[in-house]
């Protein structure tokens, strides 16, 4: 995201062209994220279908309540982010900054809860690598826990990146380096990323926590 007078913008003739380029570029980048997590989801679903019973045993041990609450946090933070965009469009700088902060804060809460969740799973001996996974006997159940760990950790890393980017943008807003609505593209493309990370979670959560859970 260049500054106002950045020489790199010479290839664009108008701000509209530049905005179009930024949007398209961000959407293309997000498509790579969807392909990567999509591949992971395919793997999760393949093992679910191949070893239904055993995977159920693993799903039983996952904390769907925590996960559900975390999902609510993330959805709320996405909602707040769209409010932030509205504020940015109307150049309501103070609103924008606080909404951004709240959104980033909710994501931090997500990460904190995720850490707590991993800690409980560690204590229950469920996590691969760190524990013996003794509560789970079947190899496919243990593998599913491994996939749960990989998927949620990868997702959490993306949340972390989003938090850092969000904090960076908040700082630049605070320092007055991003006037609105001239630099709206920065907020909007960032929000695309934020929402995409949320959408990925919307697919991960049922695939890992909910489906196959004994009622």
């Amino acid at each position, binding site marked *: 995201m260049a500054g106002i007078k950045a020489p790199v913008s010479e*290839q664009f003739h108008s701000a509209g062209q530049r905005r179009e*380029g930024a949007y398209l570029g961000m959407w293309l980048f997000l498509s790579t*994220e969807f392909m990567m997590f999509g591949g992971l989801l395919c793997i999760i679903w393949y093992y679910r279908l191949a*070893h239904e019973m055993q995977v159920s045993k693993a799903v039983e041990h996952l904390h769907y309540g925590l996960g559900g609450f975390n999902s609510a946090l993330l959805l709320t933070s996405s909602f707040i982010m769209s409010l932030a965009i509205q504020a940015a469009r109307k150049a309501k700088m103070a609103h924008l900054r606080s909404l951004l902060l709240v959104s980033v804060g909710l994501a931090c809460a997500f990460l904190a809860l995720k850490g707590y969740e991993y800690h409980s799973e560690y204590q229950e001996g469920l996590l691969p*690598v760190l524990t013996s996974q003794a509560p789970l006997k079947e*190899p496919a159940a243990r593998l599913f826990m*491994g996939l749960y760990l*990989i998927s949620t950790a990868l997702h959490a890393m993306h949340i972390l990146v989003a938090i850092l980017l969000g904090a960076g943008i908040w700082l630049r807003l605070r320092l007055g380096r991003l006037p609105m609505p001239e630099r709206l593209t920065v907020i909007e493309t960032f929000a695309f990323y934020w929402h995409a990370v949320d959408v990925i979670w919307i697919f991960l959560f049922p695939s890992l926590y909910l489906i196959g859970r004994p009622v």
Partner: protein
Amino acid sequence: MISETSHVASTEPSYLEVEHGLKSWLLTTDHKRIAILFMIAVTFFFFVGSLAAGAIRIELITPQGDFLTPDGYNRSFTLHGVIMVWFFLIPSIPSVLGNFLIPLMIGAKDMALPRMNLASWYLLAGGGLFTMTALIAGGVDTGWTFYTPLSTMFSHGHVVAVIAGVFITGFSSIFTGINIIVTVHTLRAPGMTWFRLPLFVWSLYATSVILVLATPVLAITLLLVVAERFFGIGVFDPRLGGDPLLFQHLFWFYSHPAVYIMLLPGMGVISELVTASAHKRIFGYSFVAFSSVAIAILGFMVWGHHMFVAGQSMYASMLFSLLSFLIAIPSAIKSYNWTATYFKSRLTINAPFLYTLTFITLFLLGGTSGLFVALLAADVHVHDTYFVVAHFHYIMVGAAVSAYFGGLHFWWPKITGKMYPELWGRVAAVTMFIGFNLTFFPQFILGYLGMPRRYHSYSPEYQFLNDVSSSGAAVLAVAYALPFFYLTWSLFKGPQAIANPWQAAGLEWSVPSPPPKHNFPNVPVVDFEAYDYPPEATRGRN
């Protein structure tokens, strides 16, 4: 519109002269300088990969494994595959020729995302050096395909390091792909509609779609191999509930489209070279344009043809075989259309033309051998033999590398402002054709005879053909070394090039050689079709 300018009229300094010093190169955002940075990087990696190829061919002169240890040989072919695929073939045409030419061809002043362009180069150079170090110091012996459970459980080598390097470099591919798509969508000059675009742009656009959609699947596959190797999460280990075949599906889901990443840009170059050498509009523009798109789409549907004997279902194999036949159609269309373009043309027999001939002939042989391996019953016999090695080298080297060299020669005057020595260019092209066929044609026979690939030692009855192949490799080495020397020579001693030395159509020929930093003084307005050669070529025009 063929530029009539016959001398460099611009008062603006060229992009090469406008700034000096290391910083002006390492921190540049000019797509032309970045293209040169990529050229240096891929040339270096090509050289390293070739050394490994040399080691392999030397070893295979004799049936016994007497030049390298078994592990040394296995590391050599792994290094060769990893470096050539990810650090030479995939970036070569898109990041060198694509970066340089796309803005010029569409009438833009730069790529849409110049800093992402530079980042892409750093990722390639850095990732490449890191990977190469891991491959050389200690080495990896899994083959570039990293099949599990060999790579996850039985390989003693820097598997994780090499995978990390490839993973990082994947971002280089993705960034280039994103940049090309955004550029073509947003920066076309007024009047440059999609169907007025040079076919090179169509090919690179299709390639970029594959780059963006396929590379992430490799990313997750590699991550899971690391998870299994480092953390014991047995995604691909049957004893831990996993499935080794799943790796193959995931790997080839990326790697088959990847081969089209390596081929489509070459086809784009050839479309340009054919029209320029023929001085004629291409035959069937829209068919060729849509063929690029069709190859990109169908390329995602055929990955299972690498797994006919892997243990997948018989019926899945039949489906993949059928789809593989379908994907031959757009490739055939292009080959026939290029040939038809030469009908009633006005042909200049120069080095780019010779590389074009090489491409078309070797691509047809490679492509039909591809159909051979798409034939189920035939593939059962030749899978994992030298037949397959010959097939993909005909396409990757015979076709794609010829296209890269042909494009390099064709656009050399535009990129550097110098003409290369024409005689040496032709000598190199012919030597390449001879050396290539000597090296790889015997391998078709060796494969059908039953010589498996990745074999350090072999049965004595295969020796004669292996020796023919190894001698061909020596000739090929000369053919590749020659341009390195005379192209470098031309930088210092070559004659100055005019703006349009080939009298070719295309916006890139309307700017001086080499172009100024921002390409066009004013945004061109396009009111002519692609390959706007006159219907009747006038007499006296060379």
